[in-house]
């Protein structure tokens, strides 16, 4: 219990958490069968990588890592807007969101 009261968190734990979140995002990307949820898994992966960036920015006392995260957030916002518009267009054309049924390009 003494261990819990210490106030330092090793930075490697943040990195491990980031790796775990990224892997969960990959698993979601593989197993989810709904277009929107697949897209959410991509957002989860982006967030995991952001956590790594912030951790290393803290490690090196460099502010540029945080600025990179800021840019990633902006690009993620743009990506979400365009991606969701594409999802709406796909839904309008195919009337489904299941990725197994959106397979027109498959042989």
């Amino acid at each position, binding site marked *: 219990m003494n261990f*819990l009261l210490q106030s330092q968190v090793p930075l490697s734990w943040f990195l491990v958490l980031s790796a775990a979140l990224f892997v*969960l995002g990959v698993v979601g990307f593989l197993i989810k069968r709904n277009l929107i*949820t697949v897209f959410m898994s991509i957002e*989860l992966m982006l967030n995991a990588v952001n956590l790594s960036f912030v*951790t290393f920015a803290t490690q090196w006392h460099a502010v540029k890592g945080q600025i990179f995260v800021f840019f990633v957030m*902006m690009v993620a916002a743009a990506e979400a807007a*365009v991606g969701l518009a*594409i999802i709406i267009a796909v839904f309008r054309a195919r*009337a489904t969101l299941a990725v197994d049924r959106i397979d027109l390009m498959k042989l």
Partner: protein
Amino acid sequence: MHLIVFILFAVLCLAGAVNLLLQTHPINSALSLIVVMTSLAVLYLLLGAEFLAAAQVIVYSGAIMVLFTFVVMLLNAGREERTLGSKAAKRIGFPAVVVILAVLTTLLLHVEGLGAAGPNTPISTTEDLSTVLFTNLLLPFEVTSVLILIAILGAVALARKGHGDQPPADNSTQEGTVAK
């Protein structure tokens, strides 16, 4: 204190991510993703990134997830039907994912020279960030605004009912999977 906060929100974060995978309804997945993103904001605060914590809540949990929730409601997305995925995903994907996690974890836990986040972690204020952002990185910042503008135009052009796209001819062959 920092350690307790970290463990609390790391567990919350992982629970949200696992819940995202387990839920079958997209709106439940969206809500668990909000939990993940908000707990990440707390972790950013622990790391001394106060501006990013605020931006995480505003941009991710606020703007992006509201967009997701809107689309889920707009498309009336029903429960997803569980298929087991392709064989490649099962035989190669999951072992690979487990191996990646194991390798990353062992490597990261053995890295020498990583510091720790604690009460004396220097806080990088918004002022520090904006000083660099508006002096050295002014051009990328302005280019980002152009990117956002293009994204807005693209989203509107893609999502509106264009007169150009015809309704697909083979519409009758598709089973409607929309949950009513």
